[in-house]
């Protein structure tokens, strides 16, 4: 982002996304370029703002060149100042261009003005990368180190007097041969673990689960843009918690009462057994409709959070989808004051937006 034009480009994107200059909205359109991606044709949407000006209207009357009879179609979208060669091959299968996840994350970050995550300095565990910067005397031919071999041979010949400048011919022997070898360099690695917990008791409807799913998707995208590896674990609970895979997480429906502490216990258990907080960036998100079994359980949850979970997590977020039974757990959890704790109510699609912004807005 260092070219001066990036500012203009950013301003343009802001206008196109409707964030500023409402009065330009009516002039925004999407034309397309047809490009190639391998063998497929791809449609690349190009947003365009056209300021009004005095121009001719109605249908074009134009001039073209090429073969054809009267009545042959001429591929044009109307204004002959469009680029590209659209429209000439009817029936070609055109794919929509996908955004890469990085681009998606970038848009998310811009839209929500999210700060980049500053991973806690977890320098204890290093990943390694391999570089072929070393040398040894034996090895496979594919790793032969020509220059060094040559040099060794030259040295030997000079030392033994067999080198003839008039007819230089360097022939290495077995002892001259040198091969590349690798060294491992430690590189601080950034890895993250995200533990999603969801209340799947009777009161969580499909609609609410859908809200959770959407929120989780954006969180995943965002985190993946910041960490080399993101491992996701899923816990569902009603009165008891178990770990599941992502599919089950989003489709399971149980019935029964709700004990949130069961989920927190399990989460804690997983962390302590498998992920050393000193080495991993840990995130945890819990979604529920707020109804917990009783006061005792509330207390247990608060204990777990304050004493076990919050100390080792980067961030803990609680999202409460609307419930008919009151907002009890939200009120409970907000009793803890900790900047790593974040609680939000998500009542509908629009509020996912604010939820994500709150969750990820801290830069943890």
């Amino acid at each position, binding site marked *: 982002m260092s*070219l*001066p*034009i990036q*500012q*203009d*480009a*950013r*301003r*343009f*994107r802001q*206008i196109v996304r409707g964030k*500023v*200059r409402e*009065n*330009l909205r009516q*002039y925004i359109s999407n034309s397309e*370029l047809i*490009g*190639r*991606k391998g063998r497929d044709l*791809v449609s*690349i949407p*190009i*947003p*365009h*703002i056209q*300021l*009004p*000006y*005095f*121009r*001719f*209207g*109605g*249908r*074009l*009357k*134009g*001039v*073209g*060149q*090429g*073969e*054809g*009879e*009267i*009545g*042959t*179609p*001429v*591929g*044009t979208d*109307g204004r*002959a100042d469009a*680029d*590209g*060669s*659209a*429209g*000439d091959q009817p029936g070609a299968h055109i794919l929509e261009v996908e955004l890469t996840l990085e681009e998606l994350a970038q848009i998310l970050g811009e839209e929500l003005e999210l700060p980049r995550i500053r991973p806690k300095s977890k320098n204890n565990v290093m990943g390694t990368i391999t570089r072929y910067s070393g040398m040894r005397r034996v090895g496979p031919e594919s790793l032969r180190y020509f220059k060094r071999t040559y040099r060794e041979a030259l040295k030997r010949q000079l030392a033994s007097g067999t080198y003839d400048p008039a007819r230089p011919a360097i022939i290495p022997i077995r002892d001259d041969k040198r091969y590349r070898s690798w060294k491992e360099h430690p590189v601080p690695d950034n890895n993250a673990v995200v533990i999603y917990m969801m209340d799947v008791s009777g009161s969580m409807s499909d609609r609410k689960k859908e809200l959770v799913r959407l929120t989780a998707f954006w969180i995943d995208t965002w985190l993946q843009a910041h960490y080399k590896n993101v491992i996701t674990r899923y816990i569902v609970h009603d009165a008891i918690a178990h770990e599941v895979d992502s599919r089950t997480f989003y489709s399971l429906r149980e019935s029964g009462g709700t004990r949130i502490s069961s989920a927190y216990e399990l989460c804690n258990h997983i962390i302590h057994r498998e992920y050393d907080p000193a080495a991993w960036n840990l995130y945890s998100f819990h979604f529920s409709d707020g109804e917990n079994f009783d006061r005792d359980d509330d207390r247990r949850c608060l204990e777990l959070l304050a004493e076990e979970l919050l100390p080792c997590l980067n961030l803990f977020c609680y999202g409460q989808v609307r419930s008919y039974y009151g907002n009890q757990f939200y009120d409970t959890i907000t009793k803890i004051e900790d900047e790593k704790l974040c609680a939000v109510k998500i009542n509908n699609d629009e509020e996912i937006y604010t939820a994500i912004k709150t969750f990820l807005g801290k830069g943890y």
Partner: protein
Amino acid sequence: MTRLVDYRELQDAIESHAREFGLDFFEVRFQMLDYDMLNQVAAYDGFPTRYPHWRFGMEYERLSKSYAYGLHRIYEMVTNTDPCIAYLLASNQLVDQKLVMAHVCGHADFFKNNLWFAHTNRKMLDEMANHAARIRRHVERYGLEEVENFLDACLSLDNLIDIHAAGIQRRPQPQSGPQPHRLYKLPAKDYMDSFINPPEFLAAQQARYQQAEQQRKHFPEEPERDVLLFLLENAPLENWQHDVLDIVREEAYYFAPQRQTKIMNEGWASYIHTNLMTRSVLEPDELIDYADHHAGTVATHGRHLNPYKLGLELFRDLEERWDRGAFGPEYEACDDLKARDEWDRRLGLGREKVFEVRLIYNDVGFIDEFLTEDFARQHRLFSYDYNDVTNQYEISGREFAEIKQRLLFQLTNFGHPIIDVLDGNYQNRGELYLLHRYEGIDLDIPYAQGTLRNLYTIWGRPVHVETVVEDKVRMLFSYGPEGDSREKLEELEEE
């Protein structure tokens, strides 16, 4: 195998071939850029910097995506300045760089010599930087949103200039002021004066005089084609707004000749690069790549006209005709197709003629004079129209007169409607009245309304444009405090 290329040497070699060929141009300074910087420069129309505006961002995004999907590699860009600045894409192969350099020589020669560029500001590099600095200052002082809104309104009107003006008018003749007048009095001796010329009579005289004055004195006295100039001089603008509008107008005039000579300029540069490359510059092992890339630039896409190709073919055609002597009254009078095809007086005037043509003509004259029926037939030109039945554009014929007329129409006034200021004090209420010189094609009404709205922002009082709709109905479209409106005007009497 990679060779270390001395680009300076290469440039010198190519330019010396170009000069031998007869070209004449200001010093060209090449810059080698990576694709990202090149896209930025292209978005800025070849200048290193422009005033801050989203439209440059828009163009940059389009170019970047287009490049990313392999749709183009900008081949050449050169500025109309002294010295010229031109660009090379770092990742291009050597044969491409040669093609670009040769092509740029053509453009540079055209800019320097073509008549229509004679009055352009060759120090535009500095000017553009200056414009950028001024706009930035205004943004700092008055805020981005305010300046951007106003800039957008100005840009909306930037085709309302006088393309026939020789260069940009800066200080037009002041309009002559009102003549002092004396009231007409009936002859009377002094003591009889108040009886013969009583006050009521004098008052009536005064009233009649004022009415006549008003009718005469709607300004401008002549319809003003340069609407932007009229606004600069008469609209109630704050200093910074005046400055912004002035900048927009300067740049519009600067680029106008380029827009009027696009076909010729591209044709000329292509003509030059093909000549230089095939005669002097290409190595044998580069031939295939060159042929491939050249074909890419002059390809037709889906039956659209490619200005590079059209221009190039026209130059080649006229060169060949002047070599053969296939011009003039005798040739025109000949009806026999076969005789025309085989006509060859061996005059060898082709080269001289193309050099002369690139000196004098712009696109309108170029097409008018050199697009012949033979050419149209050879190059399979056709007219196309929208078919309401099948809902698509279709070839509608190959009749030469129609083709030529359409092309000329598209090129006149860059294909934009001709609009004059008729009255800056319409209805004696300071309203602005524009006239669209109707020539058979209607204005785009929604766009016109949007433009009027922007005009209103600048003028401050209601604005109107008179036009004709569907060939016969005179309409007046307006914009004022109540929003937009329209009314039907009475038919003009037939002459």
